[in-house]
C-alpha cells in the first residue's frame, strides 16, 4: 500500500470525524509457527500475501487495506453504503470459506471486528495536556466546597523475576508498586486509600502504567524481560474507569514500549464467566498476552475458559503443608489450565520448599524471595537456578 493511496484516502476523509474500521486478526499464528518450525517465515509470508490478495479483490478501490501485526485493518471508503458490521461479517465469512478450501490455511483461525476510530479520538482527548489543566482547575474549584480528598501516596516500582522452570530462565518480571505509608511498607493495590473508591484505583493504575512504561523505555533492549504491569479488575470493569486507562495505555505504551503484558489483579474467583471474559478481553485489547491473579484453591477454571489468560499467578500459602496435603488437587488444577492453553505461576515462594512443592504440583513458573531478590529496574533475560548451589 503506497503513501499515495494513504494520502488520497486521507483527502476523502476530510470533514469526517469518525470512521468504522474492519480489523482482522489471525488468532493462532503461534500454533502454526510451532508446527512449521524452520519453514515458518516462508509460510507466514505466504499466508499474509495470499490473504492480502484475497481481501483486496473483495474491497472497493477506494477502500484502504493495511497490514497490521497479526492481520489487517481495512479503512472503508467514507462514502461506502454497506454498513461496517455487514462489511466485516462478509469479509470474515469469505475468508473463512477460503481458508477451508486451501490446504495450508485450513487450521487458521480469524477474529474480525468493527472498531470505531472516533473512540480513539475520545481516548486521546482524555490524555491531552488541555484535559490535565481542566482536571487541575476542577480540583481547585472543588477545594472550596469539598473536604480535602485523600491524596494518592507516592510509590516506587519493584521488579520481581518470574522463573520458568522448564527453560531455567527469567524472561518475565512482574511489577510490584511499593510505598511506605505511616511507616509501614505497602504493596500493590493496598497503596490507594480505600476512601478514594474505584476512581482512585484507576488513577493509581494509570500512574503505575506511566512509571512502568518510562522504566521500560529507559531500559529497552532486545533481550529485556517482558514486564507484567498490574491493573486492578475494577479499573477495567466499567467504561468510565476503563476509558481513561486505555487512553493512558495508548499514549504512553502502545507502539512505544515492547514486551508489555497486563496483569489483572483482584478479580473475584466467583465472578460470572461473562464478567471475567469482558475484563480479560479489555486487557487483551491492550496487550497481546495477559496474566491474571488467581487463587488455586478456590478458582473455577471453567469460568475462565473464554478469558484467554496466558499465565495465572497464584500466591503460595505460607504453610507449605497445605500445598503438600492438596498436591493432587493442585495437579488437577494445573492440568486443567494446560488443557485450555494457559499456565500457572506460583508467586510468594518464601522458601525452596514452596518451589519444590509447586513443581510437584505442576506449576510452570515461580516467583518470590526464594527465587530471586526484587530488582529496582527491568533486567535483561537471564539464567537462574534457585534450586542449585548458587540459588538466592
Amino acid at each position: 500500500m503506497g503513501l499515495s493511496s494513504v494520502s488520497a484516502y486521507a483527502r476523502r476523509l476530510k470533514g469526517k470525524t469518525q470512521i468504522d474500521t474492519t480489523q482482522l486478526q489471525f488468532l493462532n499464528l503461534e500454533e502454526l509457527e510451532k508446527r512449521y518450525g524452520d519453514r515458518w517465515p516462508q509460510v507466514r509470508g505466504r499466508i499474509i500475501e495470499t490473504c492480502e490478495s484475497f481481501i483486496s479483490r473483495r474491497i472497493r478501490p477506494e477502500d484502504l487495506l493495511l497490514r497490521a501485526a497479526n492481520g489487517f485493518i481495512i479503512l472503508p471508503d467514507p462514502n461506502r453504503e454497506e454498513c461496517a458490521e455487514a462489511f466485516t461479517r462478509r469479509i470474515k465469512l469469505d475468508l473463512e470459506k477460503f481458508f477451508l478450501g486451501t490446504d495450508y490455511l485450513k487450521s487458521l483461525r480469524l477474529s474480525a471486528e468493527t472498531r470505531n476510530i472516533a473512540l480513539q479520538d475520545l481516548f486521546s482527548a482524555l490524555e491531552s495536556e488541555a484535559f490535565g489543566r481542566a482536571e487541575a482547575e476542577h480540583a481547585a474549584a472543588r477545594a472550596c466546597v469539598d473536604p480535602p480528598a485523600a491524596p494518592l501516596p507516592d510509590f516506587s516500582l519493584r521488579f520481581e523475576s518470574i522463573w520458568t522452570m522448564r527453560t531455567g530462565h527469567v524472561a518475565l518480571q512482574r511489577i510490584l508498586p511499593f510505598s511506605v505509608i505511616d511507616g509501614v511498607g505497602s504493596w500493590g493495590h493496598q497503596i490507594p486509600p480505600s476512601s478514594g473508591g474505584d476512581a482512585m484505583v484507576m488513577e493509581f493504575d494509570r500512574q503505575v502504567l506511566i512509571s512502568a512504561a518510562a522504566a521500560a523505555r529507559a531500559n529497552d533492549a532486545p533481550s529485556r524481560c517482558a514486564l507484567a504491569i498490574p491493573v486492578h479488575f475494577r479499573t477495567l470493569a466499567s467504561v468510565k474507569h476503563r476509558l481513561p486507562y486505555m487512553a493512558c495505555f495508548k499514549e504512553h505504551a502502545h507502539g512505544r514500549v515492547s514486551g508489555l503484558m497486563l496483569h489483572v489483579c483482584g478479580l473475584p474467583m466467583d465472578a460470572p464467566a461473562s464478567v471475567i471474559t469482558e475484563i480479560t478481553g479489555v486487557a487483551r485489547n491492550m496487550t497481546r498476552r495477559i496474566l491474571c491473579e488467581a487463587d488455586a484453591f478456590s478458582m473455577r477454571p471453567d469460568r475462565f475458559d473464554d478469558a484467554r489468560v496466558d499465565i495465572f499467578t497464584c500466591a503460595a500459602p505460607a504453610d507449605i503443608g497445605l500445598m503438600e496435603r492438596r498436591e493432587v488437587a493442585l495437579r488437577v488444577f494445573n492440568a486443567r489450565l494446560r488443557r485450555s492453553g494457559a499456565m500457572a505461576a506460583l508467586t510468594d515462594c518464601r522458601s525452596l520448599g514452596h518451589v519444590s512443592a509447586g513443581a510437584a504440583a505442576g506449576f510452570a513458573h515461580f516467583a518470590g524471595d526464594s527465587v530471586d531478590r526484587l530488582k529496582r529496574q527491568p533486567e535483561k533475560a537471564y539464567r537462574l537456578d534457585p534450586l542449585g548451589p548458587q540459588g538466592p
Partner: protein
Amino acid sequence: MTHLRPVPVADSPTWRLVYASTSLIEAGPGAFRAEIADILASSARNNRLLTLTGVLVHNGSRFMQLLEGPRECVHFVMDLIRADTRHERIGVLIDERAEVRALPDWAMAFLTSRDKELSHLSPDRLETKPSAEILEGLVTLSERCSEMSVPLEPPPGG
C-alpha cells in the same frame, strides 16, 4: 429505572436547548477523569442514535450545554441530565424551536484559566446574557476550543 429512548421522527421540529449547571464531580484523584470519560462515552453512544448535536462546556465548576435535534430527543436527554447526580442547580436558559442547527456536530470543550481571551464566554458569565449572545458564545467556544474539543460524527442528514 428504565428509560425508553425516543426514536427521532422525520417530521419532528428541530429544537434547541441550553442549560447551565453546577458540577458535582468530586475532586479526588481520578474522579474527574472517570466522570468525563463516562460523559464522553455516553455522548458518543447516544448522540448519534438521537441525532443530537451541540457542545458541552466545562470551566472547573460549571457546565453549560447546547443541545440541538428533534424535540423529543432533546427533552429526553434533558430529563436524563436532571436525574444525573453530577449536576445540581440546573437552569434552562434556552428552550425553543430552531430553524437550523447552530452546530453541525457534538463537541466537549474545557475552558481553563489559560484561555484568557475566552474568559468572557465562561458558563458563569455567559448565563447572564440574552439568548442570542449565549448561543453565539457557545458556537464561538466550540470553534475556538479545537484543541480541547472532542468532535463526534455529525448526525445523518443533520
